[in-house]
């Protein structure tokens, strides 16, 4: 497996809490880059779709012709981690809603499923894959994952709903690990990236390394 320091992980920077993800990834030791254009996205080995407003991000993705690119990105086996709005964009179906989505992950989500902002909450999550210590889940106008397809593995529950799950190299959470200082979920994702990276053609990516983008803070 390659070293974490060698991984270039993009954070889709069209809208949302991009900075918080960049900081978390950088603290884990990866090269974290804000990305919004084709050549930037292609240069990355993995992508994070941050929290934000899913309708806004979706519109910008489709207006700027990034939808097919992101679908190809996933099809090439490159990992994608979506948090909150990111989980909505990755979902195959959004309950009662025709808004844009990439439709990559076999889950059905419902937006704002806990209610409006005053219902936003924090809770201790038990995430066995991250060890025994509870993980602080920050849920903001959060969606709920209403159902999972066969290939989707639930990794954590809160109030009897799946809040973290994985399908192959796709990972989604309905909460915001980037708003805490707990890096374990970003580390978990980077290990997924390392494993995927070593199984694809490393030499090919090697040429793109440090393709002129500045690492952020």
């Amino acid at each position: 497996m390659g070293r974490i320091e060698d991984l270039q992980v993009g954070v889709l920077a069209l809208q949302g809490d991009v900075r918080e993800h960049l900081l978390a990834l950088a603290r884990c030791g990866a090269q974290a880059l804000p990305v919004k254009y084709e050549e930037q996205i292609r240069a990355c080995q993995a992508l994070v779709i941050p929290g934000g407003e899913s309708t806004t991000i979706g519109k910008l993705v489709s207006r700027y012709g990034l939808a097919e690119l992101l679908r190809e990105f996933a099809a090439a086996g490159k990992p994608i981690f979506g948090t909150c709005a990111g989980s909505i964009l990755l979902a195959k179906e959004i309950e009662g809603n025709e808004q844009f989505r990439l439709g990559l992950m076999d889950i059905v989500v419902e937006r704002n499923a806990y209610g409006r902002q005053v219902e936003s909450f924090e809770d201790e999550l038990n995430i066995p894959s991250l060890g025994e210590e509870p993980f602080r889940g920050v849920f903001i106008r959060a969606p709920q994952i209403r159902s999972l397809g066969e290939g989707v593995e639930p990794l954590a529950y809160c109030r009897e709903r799946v809040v973290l799950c994985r399908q192959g190299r796709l990972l989604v959470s309905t909460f915001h690990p980037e708003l805490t200082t707990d890096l374990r979920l970003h580390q978990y994702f980077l290990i997924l990236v390392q494993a995927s990276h070593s199984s694809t053609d490393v030499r090919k990516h090697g040429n793109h390394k440090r393709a002129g983008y500045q690492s952020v803070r």
Partner: protein
Amino acid sequence: MERATWRTKVGLAEMLKGGVIMDVTHAEQAQIAEEAGAVAVMALERVPADIRAEGGVARMADPLKIKEIMEAVSIPVMAKARIGHFAEAQVLEALGVDFVDESEVLTPADEEHHIDKHKFNVPFVCGCRDLGEALRRIGEGAAMIRTKGEAGSGNIVEAVRHMRLVTSEMRRLSALKEEELMGTAKELRAPYELVCQVVKEGRLPVPNFAAGGIATPADAALMMQLGAEAVFVGSGIFKSKDPRARAKAIVEATAHYDRPDIVAKVSEGIGEAMAGLDVHKLEEKDLLQTRGW
């Protein structure tokens, strides 16, 4: 489980970064804003340009109107309460709005005290003209700060002044020695702990947005390059010739603020902007930015 924590309040503000929050006065405008790609809408009875033109006391919007707007869109809905009018804020919280703007655009209800925003479950945004004012509002519990600019003017000059002042004062703080911070806090009339936090982190403790006079895609790109993390557009959209086209263009210019070629492209043929005012010709009593402290 804990509801409405400080982290969930500031967290919602973080989620709006890179986006555009648009003033709307009815459900149809709210839908136009959402279709254009707004991250949130601000529900109000009259846009600032009309408040300015019509005069009289400007108050919180009719709850029925706010509810119609909340039902019309899936994005967050904000609404304005008068400065110091905590009962209006209580009403807005009871309605379930996602953010309350304690706003100088409405006629102040209290000339000495702003709302104690820590007491509420709903997060608040407040305007500022400089760093001291920003930190006073954060001290009272504001989870988001915006420049005041000069609302309803269609003139960006005041928002630029306020944003530059906030960021240059932060830069000045970073050069100070620890023992100089208390004196500086006194001079800024800002809470000492928050001054220390700004020095430590090099940024405001909550997101810092631009508002007050944004009327064009280039205005939005300007504010983003000056350090705003998102923009509010008040009268600028629905007082222009073609609100749909302008709203969409401002959303795209905000997302691609660092790409002049894209800002140029989206600015093409979107009709006339709102007329706008020369703020130097406004009398002191007609300025909205001097309301609150």
